[in-house]
């Protein structure tokens, strides 16, 4: 190869970016809103039972638990890491809560154990990834087996029942009228996460890490510590989700929340968070959570089996990612012509 091949072409500095970051994000969320509205309209025509406040209230249970984890997972993925162990954390936390309830621990104690287990598991992931510098995808595949495996060791093929009566509030209680405790918690968490990611320097640092961890490190961002905090947060949210699910179901099996990790990640990616890190918004994730809830609930009303719904979710995931790419390519070709 001759040297001429690598001489740099003269740089042309554009007066503004080809595609402003802001408008790209806006259009993504606009797309999600359009999808959500379409599904909502289709649903209300498809089933006479859909447009009812209590139906719609039930609908929210489809996404609040996974959505809570997705909020923290979004931050983690934006920082360039991933956590596949969230569902296993739910299983372990739920099992330990069941154990505690079995020996007569009351609601506050059970609650503390569930949330605490989540936090400890998240910290364990964080330590392995940031302390030892291991790839998060492999670490969390390992801890996923470890956490759920521990639940299986404790419970085997048994189940825990008999939670304190007051414990049922978290998963079955209503704050006001049709608004469940789960929905209220999700709404509050969404606002908090939105504020943290988009309005604080901590949030800016997460984006900085995701775009270029080395540059962020040299700019004085404590990359390891922030990633560790994000793993703890994801664990904590999984612990909270474990409390909600356990309370809603009123029983614990080691196979609880099987496959949730992939649904949560689907939610995050559907919400416009780049799986490669560095881009995304909480609004997108909330919209994606809503869309997934709408799809599963609407199809459920039509007696479509869960496994067929998963086809829709899978198609939705690929289409929503592929369409802007195709659109962009088509647009560029037209511009060049």
């Amino acid at each position, binding site marked *: 190869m001759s040297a001429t091949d690598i001489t740099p072409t003269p740089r042309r500095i554009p007066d503004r970016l080809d595609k402003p970051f802001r408008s790209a994000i806006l259009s993504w969320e606009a797309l999600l809103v359009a999808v959500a509205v379409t599904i909502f309209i289709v649903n209300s025509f498809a089933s006479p039972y859909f447009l009812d406040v209590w139906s719609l209230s039930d609908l929210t249970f489809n996404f609040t638990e996974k959505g809570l984890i997705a909020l923290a997972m979004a931050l983690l993925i934006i920082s360039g890491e991933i956590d596949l162990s969230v569902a296993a954390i739910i299983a372990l936390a739920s099992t330990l809560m069941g154990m505690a309830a079995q020996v007569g621990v009351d609601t506050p104690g059970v609650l503390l154990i569930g949330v605490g287990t989540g936090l400890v598991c998240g910290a364990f992931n964080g330590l392995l990834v940031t302390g030892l510098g291991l790839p998060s995808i*492999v670490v969390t*595949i*390992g801890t996923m087996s*470890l956490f759920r*495996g521990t639940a*299986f060791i404790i419970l085997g093929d048994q189940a825990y029942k008999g939670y304190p009566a007051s414990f049922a509030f978290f998963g079955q209680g209503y704050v006001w009228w049709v608004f469940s405790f789960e929905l209220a918690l999700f709404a509050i968490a969404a606002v908090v996460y939105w504020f943290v990611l988009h309005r604080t320097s901590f949030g800016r640092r997460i984006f900085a890490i995701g775009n270029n961890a080395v540059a962020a490190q040299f700019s004085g961002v404590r990359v390891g510590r922030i990633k560790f905090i994000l793993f703890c947060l994801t664990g904590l949210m999984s612990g909270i989700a474990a409390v909600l699910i356990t309370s809603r179901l009123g029983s614990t099996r080691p196979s609880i929340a099987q*496959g949730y990790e992939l649904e949560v990640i689907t939610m995050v990616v559907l919400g416009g968070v780049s799986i490669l890190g560095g881009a995304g918004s909480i609004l997108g994730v909330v919209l994606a959570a809503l869309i997934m809830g709408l799809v599963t609930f609407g199809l459920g009303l039509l007696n479509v089996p869960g496994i067929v719904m998963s*086809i829709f979710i*899978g*198609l939705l995931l690929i289409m929503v990612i592929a369409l802007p790419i195709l659109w962009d390519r088509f647009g560029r070709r037209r511009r060049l012509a």
Partner: protein
Amino acid sequence: MKTLAKHREIWLLAAIAGLVALISVRFPGFARPGNLATVFNDTSILMILALGQMVVILTRSIDLSMASNLAFTGMVVAMINAAFPAFPIPLLILVAIGVGLLLGALNGLLVWKLGIPPIVVTLGTLTIYRGATFLISGGAWVNADQMSPAFVGLQRMQLLGMPVLSWIAITVIALFFVLMSRTSVGRSFYAIGVNPTASVYAGIDVGRTKFLAFCLSGAVAGLCGYLWISRYVIASVEVANGYELNIIAACVIGGISIAGGIGSVAGAVLGALFLGIISTALPVINVSPFWQMAISGSAILLAVVLNARGERKQGRIILRKAEAA
């Protein structure tokens, strides 16, 4: 670099030997050649799948859809067999490989032509392929009595003292060994994993090579679709649910770096064997099978920690050699 790579497989082999020795203390019959051959046979499917996954991981990608692909293909061949029992089995195996290849090619096309990250593509197709399994079967099972004796019997036939399933595994291992070490395509899988940019300058089409890797993992999953169904003699939507993570676990234990470019056929095979031995041995030494998951989780974590240290060492050696040159 080669001696170091060899080192890792030797360590893994030593760990497996140690594991077998440890089990033999509790249960002396475990290390008998006949029993080890049975363990090998039991692990055949996981070994074949791990080899397919290895190629994908080498190219800095990941295929989460392998287990769903397996379930879909398995259902297809089981339904063909139930409807046309006279359909020749060798042809049916070709159909399985073909269907698997097609599903893998779809993954590969989305990665290659649209540039969607592999983890997103295969996360999507993971649910789509399993959902499609439900659609074609209507949720019904294909039971043992609907399968022809040839369909079920082929892999159990004894050939030179071993079941055909073991021979299929050995053939696939040999093919992968030749592919990875003796062909330019095999070397380009490594090349684009180590340095995609340099590979482009070396004339390797990165996208196309990734596409080929997905085709390969798909074809392998298809083959295992037939093997799985004829081994466990039931085809349902739930077949191999969640197994994709076992496959990745085998690769990780086998020292295949998730960052791409590092890994070997021997590693993938040994990683799968390690998991296979654990799952066979637990009931034998009176440990509840419920311990299996936690043990393999710990094994994965241990393997990652050890591999990460190995990779760092390797990096320095390459630099030193470059300086000397």
